[in-house]
């Protein structure tokens, strides 16, 4: 029933090929939703909502005085990725994270890539998250990014493009696990015959990743998760991961540094900490080194890190690889460090700090997407084709004022995926955030968070701006 009225559009459709035929790997899902009576589906949708609400799978919306908790909207139609397609994505992600870690090692040591002129030195020195004071400081196993959540989209021809590398504190993995648990519970009949790869090992893999970098290689190094606190929008996720890993979730005020070692305050006194999976930004880690007004950090933490007595995941200074200007050079890094062609393509990027590019950007603002180099969460962005004259004028002024802070990209139309809207299936734009762990080996969680822009025609998938999510099914064969 549902599929009969489904419309494809002039972009890649996840479900149907250009001839309107269901792609073979979607048949199980398509048949299920085709056959299910409307009332039954309605009831399943309701029980999914209730499940999330009851379990408190929520996030907090900023800018709302009440600090309202909202359920992250969930769409019951799963996204399916066939095994062969996933192999390519996985290989591409592994290649990319390998290059990024080599790049970070290089930037914080000899800076060969700058000396060889592959990346202009001013790109790095102008990046807001570059930490020059850490040049020359080594990190265990030379790994900087331990947890990465790369954003992928699909171009018109279906090829995956990297949109962003989130190498600081990517979030969303708890929703991957909770979405899966909810789907198993509410749609067991469908799930049972789909042949989906499990995502359950993520917390265990994350814990091994953390243990792998512990300075004391004892049987049970003390790993903790450092959260900004209960008012943070991702607190649910922090608490979820800590519980799943069986480690303590700590706030800055639970930790203290004595003689270069980090301890947590317990009811039985102080207990040494080895590894901190931190979910707060560099700036707030240590008020004696970074922002002095930070109430979330721990005085002396950075010193303890320098001495190698405690390890942070991710390391300090990974934001330089996250920068949207640095992004433009990732294909060059892959070539420089690995001598390989990038497996995953990325979106062409114009850099406003280059005179030619700036000229092009200013002349083509209504056709381009402009992003602030260091903003995230969909903030500080101009979508040219949808913008008013005033907004365009505003961005023109901003770019003129600080060209280093802006990049522009052509509009890429994300793929669309059938999504349940008022009882019918409609196409909505989706992206994909897979999660990558760099420990003893590099592991890519099969699947990831598929975010969907629930507003018709909207390209913004961010949860803070009206996005929802789907369960992502990577097929075993």
């Amino acid at each position, binding site marked *: 029933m549902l599929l009969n009225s489904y419309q494809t559009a002039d972009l890649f459709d996840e479900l149907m090929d250009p001839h309107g035929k269901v792609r073979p790997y979607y048949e199980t899902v398509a048949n299920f939703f085709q056959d299910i009576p409307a009332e039954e589906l309605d009831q399943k949708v309701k029980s999914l909502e209730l499940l999330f609400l009851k379990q408190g799978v929520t*996030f907090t919306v900023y800018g709302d005085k009440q600090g309202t908790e909202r359920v992250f909207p969930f769409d019951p139609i799963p996204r399916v990725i066939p095994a062969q397609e996933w192999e390519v994505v996985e290989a591409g992600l592994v290649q990319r994270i390998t290059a990024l870690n080599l790049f970070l090692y290089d930037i914080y040591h000899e800076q060969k890539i700058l000396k060889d002129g592959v990346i202009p030195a001013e790109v790095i020195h102008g990046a807001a998250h570059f930490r020059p004071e850490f040049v020359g400081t080594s990190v265990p196993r030379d790994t900087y990014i331990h947890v990465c959540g790369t954003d992928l989209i699909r171009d018109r021809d279906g090829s995956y493009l990297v949109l962003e590398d989130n190498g600081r504190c990517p979030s969303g993995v708890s929703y991957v696990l909770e979405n899966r648990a909810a789907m198993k519970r509410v749609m067991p009949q469908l799930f049972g015959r789909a042949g989906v790869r499990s995502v359950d090992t993520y917390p265990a893999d994350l814990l091994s990743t953390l243990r792998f970098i512990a300075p004391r290689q004892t049987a049970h190094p003390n790993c903790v998760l450092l959260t900004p606190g209960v008012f943070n929008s991702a607190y649910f996720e922090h608490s*979820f991961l800590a519980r799943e890993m069986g480690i303590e*979730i700590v706030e800055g005020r639970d930790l203290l540094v004595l003689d270069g070692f980090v301890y947590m305050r317990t009811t039985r006194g102080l207990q040494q900490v080895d590894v901190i999976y931190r979910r707060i930004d560099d700036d707030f880690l240590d008020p004696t080194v970074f922002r002095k007004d930070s109430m979330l950090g721990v005085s002396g933490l950075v010193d303890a890190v320098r001495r190698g007595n405690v390890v942070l995941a991710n390391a300090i200074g990974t934001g330089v690889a996250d920068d949207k200007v640095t992004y433009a050079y990732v294909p060059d890094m892959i070539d420089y460090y690995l001598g390989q062609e990038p497996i995953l393509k990325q979106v062409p990027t114009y850099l406003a700090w280059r005179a030619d590019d700036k000229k092009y950007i200013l002349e083509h603002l209504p056709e381009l997407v402009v992003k602030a180099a260091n903003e995230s969460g969909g903030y500080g962005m101009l979508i040219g084709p949808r913008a008013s004259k005033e907004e365009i004028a505003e961005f023109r002024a901003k770019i003129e004022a600080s060209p280093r802070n802006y990049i522009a990209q052509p*509009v890429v139309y994300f793929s669309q995926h059938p999504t349940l809207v008022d009882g019918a299936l409609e196409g909505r734009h989706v992206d994909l955030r897979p999660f990558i762990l760099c420990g003893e080996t590099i592991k890519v969680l099969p699947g990831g968070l598929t975010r969907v822009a629930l507003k018709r025609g909207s390209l913004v998938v961010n949860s803070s701006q009206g996005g929802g999510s789907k369960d992502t099914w990577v097929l075993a064969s």
Partner: protein
Amino acid sequence: MLSRVADHLYWMSRYIERAENLARLMQVSVELLLDGAALGAQNPDQYWAPVLSATAMEGAFRLLYPNPQPGDSSFFLTLDTRNPDSIISCVQEARENARTVRDQISDEMWTELNELYLQISSQNGAALLNNSPQVFFERIIQSSLQFDGITSATLPRSEGWNFLQLGRFLERADKTSRFVDIKTQTPEGLDPTAEVLQWGTILRACSAHAPYRKSNGTEVSLERVLDLLVFSTDFPRSVRFSVRMVDEMLHNISGHPTGQYSNECEKLAGALLAQLNFSGTTDVLSKGVHAYIDELQVSLNNLGQAIFETYVKLPQQVSGISRPLVFDPFEFHLQKQQQQQQQQPPITPTRLGFLEHHSTPPRASHVHSAPLSVAGGI
């Protein structure tokens, strides 16, 4: 266990117990109110006055409602979020504490508190209170009892359990003693039927009606009520029973045998328990019920403070060695802790100015780390 986590577990259970006790007291008062209305009573709010006084909320009520209208007091006690001790505020605090330590409690415990909060904070909650107040109060009581049962069936008997029980029984000892004191707040020389009604009310609020009848028949006397609510060794809501649980939990935490003490809170708990063990109704009567309860409340408050000093605050003093901080969020926590304890001072009528202390403390702003979606749009 992290000191902060212990603190959250302790307050989580204190708050749910606090909500339950208020609901108990209001439930029986609603029944009285109905009886009164049947007899043609003019002002239904007079039935809330003892509740306000027993829970030390009169001052706050007068501040928020200088010219109370009918219905104001019951709203103030139940769904008024401006009152930090209203039922809804207690449930919210319990849930917020639970949310903070969700990794430490079972899923079922969280779900119970979360559902209760979602229900009573919604439109349905207000409607339920208006249409069938009895059912509303029952829902709170049931939920607290279920939470207790779920906890008992799902939580390992480790440190967290001990802190949780500590909070529950300390709060219960405090509340039961306040209920007993309600009697001293009412003027002398009421007609005898009214008196019987009132002791009956208090007994029922403590689920002690049937146990009382079983051992004493229908004749109600002050001595026997005190025997049950203050000194009973086996009634789980009596002051003595609750203090014994507190003592036991403290010794479970430290691993030190009972009957001795290894820290200040064990000393205070042991002393209070001994005092309850080796005194009786005649001692209460010779001192005067109100004076006796007042002393008891001071001891309970001191005990709460000592628990905080021993298990939550102490490590902070250690850190004083090497941690110069311009602003220490832990200070705020200490403040909050004291505010929480002071919001229910002993029943000394001059100490009711908690609203000044309880204005919203400066919360650390947690807007800094990346929100869920770090990605841009297109």
